[in-house]
């Protein structure tokens, strides 16, 4: 299977969408990243990454129903696609495999 390249930040965003499980949209992803990683990210970065991930086929999105909140404006809810979760799994698998290859003394010292 052809591996699609996934950037580091893209990986984090993709993970966050998976974590938020149906609650993922611009605001929550943004806040979650700041809370969990302590990184300050601008909204535009998240926004662009989401669009890029969707283009690559790792995410799908649909507009939620209108609510009375936020001026009645709809949210775009993101979910991870099969391809997305496969990609995440592959990365994890790859990391695990690589960890296994570490020389024993390094492994014991916890690097």
């Amino acid at each position: 299977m052809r591996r699609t390249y996934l950037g580091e930040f893209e990986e984090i965003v993709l993970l966050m969408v998976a974590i938020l499980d149906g609650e993922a949209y611009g605001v929550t992803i943004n806040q979650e990243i700041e809370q969990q990683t302590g990184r300050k990210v601008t909204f535009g970065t998240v926004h662009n990454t989401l669009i890029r991930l969707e283009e690559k086929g790792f995410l799908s999105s649909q507009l939620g129903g209108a609510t009375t909140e936020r001026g009645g404006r709809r949210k775009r809810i993101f979910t991870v696609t099969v391809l997305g979760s496969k990609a995440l799994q592959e990365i994890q698998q790859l990391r695990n495999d690589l960890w296994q290859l570490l020389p024993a003394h390094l492994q014991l010292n916890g690097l």
Partner: protein
Amino acid sequence: MKKTGQHTPSPPRWAEQLLIWFHPAETLEEVQGDLEELFAGWYKERGIRYAGFKYFLSILSVTPPFVRKRKPKHQYHQPFLMHPAMIQNYFKIAYRSLQKNRLYSFINLTGLALGLGVAITLFWIVRFEYSFDNYHANADRIYRIASTDKFGEPQSHVPQGVIKTLSTQVPGIELAANLQGSMPGSVKVGTKVFNQKNIFYAPPQMLEMLDIEWIEGSPKQSLGAPGNVVLDEETAKKLFRDDAMGKTFRFDDTIDLTVSGIIKKVPANTEFPLQMIISRETFKQLQPEFKNENYFGGGDSMNQGFVLLKKGSSQQPINKILASLAQRHKDENTTTSYHLQPLSDMHFDTDKDAYNYSMPHWIIYTLASIGLFLIFIACINFINLATVQAIQRGREIAMRKVLGGGKGQLIGQFFGETAILVFSAIVLGSLLASKLIEYTPQLLGILVPKAEIWKISTFIFLFALGIVVTLLAGFYPALVLSKFEPIRALQNRLFIPVSKGISLRSTLVVLQFVIAQVLIICTILGIKQIRYFQEKDLGFAKSAVITVAMPDRGNNNLRERFTRSLSGHNEIKAVTYGLTTPASQRNHWWGVVKDARLPNGEETFRIQHVDTNYFNFFHISLLAGRGLTASDTTKDIRTGAENTPILINEKAAKDLGYIDMNKVLGQRLEIWGVKSTVVGVVKNYHSEGLKSKLMPHVYLYGSWNFQLASIRIDPTQKEAALKHIGAEWTSLFPNHYYDPKFLEDEISSFYESERNLSNFIKLFACIGIIIGSLGLFGLVSFVVTQRTKEIGVRKVLGATVPGIVTLLSRDFLKLVFIAFIIASPLAYYAMNRFLQEYTYKIDIEAWVFVLSGVISIGIALMTVSFQSIKAALMNPVKSLRTE
């Protein structure tokens, strides 16, 4: 993110507006919502300032160029726009829609063809006028010497002394020459007498300066000796039929000339229409005063001066030398300054006496701007009709959009259709223009048709014109068309956008009629002014007068015989002789009168040599004193008598400071160095047409200079009179060409440029109103079709035919009326400025405006009512059944 009931301030409006403006539309809604939520979070966290700052930063991060654009989920499959099948389709649809709306297509095509035809004609005219003398290889180095006299009047004469000094003493000058233009003369070859126009006396240098194609001979060989003459091919053929070189002819019954050179016919676009060039040496023999090459006096306005500068030398130092020359010789001449005038300016200088003709810049500008206006009117028609038609094509457009046609494709398609129409109109317009251009000599007095018309620049112009007009006419309809929403168009819910206030279409209609009405008003006033010129009493009787030239300046014996032989015929009433008639275009003689009584100590008087019965003949009345009598004829000015009797006119008397005309009698006056006594005062008359001021005149008997005979005939027997005069004249002057003229024709030629311009504006006004009416006709017929059902319902409910006609016509007539209100002051302003040029002019009366209003409203009414009456008379049963 918890939501609390507590009130949070909303993000700053201006920042949000930035987002709305710049953020891509596809993701605007969600981003707006997200940011508002984030703003609330930040506010709770750190307060309003922090929130505002973060909010602004975030907005920047989602505006171009930072933001990524979300691609639409499903990209429509777009067929290749230039696929052969699509191109075929475009043409098919264009053809169908043109055919379906035959009326509109016809109106558009006619309007555009008329407007473009005129524009193309004007392009040819303007190109021709600006091409004058640009074909000479040294055109940028050739200059005419222009000058001004001490009365501030521009004058054309350049004394030989100036040329002599320039060519021998001034560095930077390659060639300098005098060119003497001459009145038409008689050429006798064998027994045949020809009238020859465009005769010039020139030294070889003059022809070296200009680009002239020599068939035989060269400037130096052919114009060096007395008796030499150079002919152009056409004249040579006219005079000799076969080879003319070396042949001899008799010129003006005074001298024999031998053909020493032949040149190709000069192009039409030259200020030097050289047909017969006689060597300057011959001129010196004919007029011995020109033997002195160093003179600085004199003043024949057809004796002009030209120079060719050396490569790289500039005109400033030469202008300086010319100024000092004028200063040094100010006592010998009235000229106070000379300066160089580039050859390219010469054609547009109306102050000079032209060998060919002069074209003032303002006429060109007026013509060109009217041409632009006509194109504009035609484009307005197109825009109006195309916009209303576009609505009918709503479904086609919707279908195209549904099947994947993009906005760009629709715009392209519409521009393509416009281009087809515009370029067909250009073809028709060119045909029209090539017919129209043939009439320019009559209409405008210019010779464009003699020049080549279909040059490369014409095609470039036509192409550029097509592109510009297509863009101008197609832009708005294409925009409207491509903006249609497919769903609404398919649901048939498209209406003509009824805009509040003033719609674009009404504005355009008003604009059209403003232009047309301004043209109408200007035409009426122009025609009135010209009629005024022709009908106003000039102060002398001009009707039924025939003039013939008296060769040899009226040799006394021959003149007596001519008078006697004419008096034998009943058709001829009277004969008189003089230098000229009271008013004529040419042959003005001037003399500077120095007298302490004159305001500036001196003034230029016009000198008129008259026979004893001259004033009686022309019904010019005397205000004081007596006319000239037979006893005065012996005291000719030339005999140097001390007491030459003269008459002056009222204007001269006033300038001399006399109010009581009787007091002038017996006063002494010195003219041309001869002491004379005023014996009578003549009432003022207009000697130079009504465009010029009254001139002071002095009249003296001078049989040596009676160059013209004026013959009053019985107007009912014109033919017989002309025949008798011709027979008598040719028997007396067998070696001269007989060329009788009617005085009235000559006087009306004073106003030629006005008449030419008014002819052209008349044509423009007609075309303007035709195009405007065509457009109105189209609009009305569209509205009528749109409102067919409404009219049916109204009729069923009892509306009368006049009621419906009024209903349909009112709106359009209102527009024409508004146009009238706007056009009147514009036309008033324009004509007021135009008429200010004239001392004698018509008043701009209200009825002219009323008339033009009535004309245009009448035409509009006719146009509109034709369609609306047809609609109103329609059987409601039929109209309600439509669709």
